[in-house]
């Protein structure tokens, strides 16, 4: 019946927002985390093979953050996805093959070779690609929320940023504006303990989640390695935003398990810290939990592996862009706004009553 869609029976009987997830949702959360990790591992291999030009950055160890948060988005919601958040792109519907093509600078990558790394967003799927300057996209997300607010639409803009980025002035301007106008924006703060080599104590004197109160909206801190905890906070924040309650800042405590980029040997990270977090790997922990609940995680793994093989093959066959096109498209001829994204959470399923029967 319809009400179970909003609050389906909880897998683990918990009473909080986790109860919003069906068994299928959980399998999907696991799948996306796995797909993010597998895609990034493949991209790293391609980088080491010299097939990815420039530098290489990933979100290894932070899969629960982008997957858990982006999973709460509806199709007409919008996202400004950051450099540790491949999971969010995958959830919006970007195929892993296109990500690999993007990384390799191929013509069919999301930016067609114009930009690299995680500097992309599929505009057809409601995503605005990030710029390097951090955290500039926080203001763009405010603008998306502003459009929803002006048009009285129950929609949400979500964006992500690292804890280091909160030191930049644009972060403050975004928080302040979101607070003043009560914009429907969800800010996901990924505290992965470092900004490049810079540890928390050089970035701020007080945990930035504490600052949300100073902007007039809630700041919530969750275990960033628990995908359901992240989801639960994000789902509540989206609901709040959608119903006129304004923005939320969600800090996800996590760890960047790889170097800042592939070139970075992380000398500056104490080994004990890495060990501590390695024992809390978000993908492994969730796998164990789902397996214990009788979900066939091996099948999902096999499926992800197969998808990635297919997609890698496809990506490797993609052509490089044509040099004479390098100067095309500096200016637009028409303005076509963002399209809608995929939204795998069962809540957004058009036939959700059936799904949750």
């Amino acid at each position, binding site marked *: 019946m319809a009400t179970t869609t909003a609050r389906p029976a909880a897998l683990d009987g918990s009473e909080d927002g986790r109860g919003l997830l069906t068994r299928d949702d959980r399998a999907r959360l696991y799948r996306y985390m796995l797909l993010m990790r597998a895609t990034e591992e493949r991209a790293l291999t391609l980088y080491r093979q010299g097939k990815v030009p420039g530098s290489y950055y990933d979100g290894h160890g932070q899969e629960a953050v982008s997957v858990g948060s982006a999973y709460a988005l509806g199709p007409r919601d919008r996202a400004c996805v950051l450099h540790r958040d491949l999971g969010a792109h995958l959830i919006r519907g970007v195929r892993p093959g296109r990500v690999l093509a993007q990384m390799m600078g191929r013509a069919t990558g999301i930016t067609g070779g114009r930009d690299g790394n995680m500097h992309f967003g599929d505009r057809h799927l409601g995503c*605005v690609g990030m710029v390097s300057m951090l955290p500039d996209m926080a203001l763009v997300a405010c603008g998306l929320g502003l459009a929803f607010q002006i048009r009285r639409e129950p929609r949400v803009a979500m964006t992500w940023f690292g804890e280091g980025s909160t030191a930049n002035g644009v972060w403050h*301007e975004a928080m302040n504006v979101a607070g003043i106008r009560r914009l429907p924006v969800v800010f996901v703060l990924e505290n992965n303990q470092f900004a490049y080599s810079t540890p928390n104590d050089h970035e701020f004197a007080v945990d930035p989640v504490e600052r949300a109160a100073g902007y007039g909206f809630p700041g919530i801190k969750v275990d960033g390695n628990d995908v359901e905890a992240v989801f639960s906070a994000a789902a509540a924040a989206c609901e709040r935003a959608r119903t006129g309650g304004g923005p939320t800042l969600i800090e996800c405590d996590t760890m960047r398990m790889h170097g800042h980029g592939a070139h970075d040997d992380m000398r500056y990270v104490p080994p004990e810290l890495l060990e501590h977090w390695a024992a809390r790997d978000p993908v492994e922990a969730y796998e164990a939990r789902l397996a214990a609940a009788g979900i066939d995680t091996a099948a999902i793994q096999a499926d992800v592996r197969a998808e990635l093989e297919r997609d890698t093959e496809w990506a490797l066959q993609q052509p490089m862009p044509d040099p004479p096109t390098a100067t095309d498209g500096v200016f637009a001829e028409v303005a076509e706004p963002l399209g809608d994204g995929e939204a795998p959470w069962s809540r957004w399923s058009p036939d959700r009553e059936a799904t949750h029967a």
Partner: protein
Amino acid sequence: MPELTYLQAISDALREEMRADERVFCLGEDIGRFGGAFKVTDGFIEEFGPDRVWDTPLAESAIVGTAVGAAVEGLRPVCEMQFADFISCGFDQLVNVAAKMHYRQGLAVPITVRLPSGGGFSGGPFHSQNPEAWMLQAPGLKVVAPSTPRDAKGLLAAAIQDPNPVVYLEHKHLYRRTKGEVPEGRYELPLGEARIAREGTDLSVIAYGAMVGVALEATEDLDGASVEVLDLRSLVPLDTDAILGSVRKTSKVVILHEATRSCGVGAEVAALIAENAFEDLDGPIVRVTAPDVPIPFSPPLERAVLPQVDNVKEACRELLAY
């Protein structure tokens, strides 16, 4: 046709676009109840309400950045910097977020950024700048700088309707000093077309914005010489055909702008001519610009720095005699 000031023409264009297209909205500091530092949006909040006329906090990055977000969601934001000088505070959002978006991702960013610019009224080093050359070194931005009320209206309408980020330089010195006939109702002038402000055969003066008037005045009666004045109107795209055409006709050229000299628009126009109309030149390409100094406050100093009618006369005379 009614006579309007340059300021009224800008205001009219904005009002008419807002009436015609509900996607158009304004944001900036003090543009609502106060009607803007220069009163361009006077009465707007009363007519369009606070959702479409947003009195933002003092935060230029926020103004440009949120405009970008609203634009990619289908709206048509028109940002006001209180003074052009403050674009330095929203610079990164303009040159990195807005300007590069379409090239990188095929996502159009139809925003307009209005910059009340220029000096001549003791605004001092922070209220007198002409920052257009920065934008020319930031591919992906269109840049316009009207000199007449008619152009001001038509170019602002075109800027708002353009699918790209357009930087609109409105010279403060023209606001209330310049009057002219302005067609009623909506119309647009194409971005990228210069205008011959006066035809001539002996020498071309190429200018834009407030300097067009200075050029006309300086060359009105220059010992009987026939001086062409070309008003660029649009700096990106630049009307190279019009520039080269004029030079081919006159063979002598003075480029005039109020902005400082090094790497200014005048440098670009001179380089363009020196590369593409070399054979047609009958004398050095002369620039009359502000020297490379901050714009000083005190009237005698400011006058010494900003190009004056006499400086233009002198430059033209010298070149004519060459």
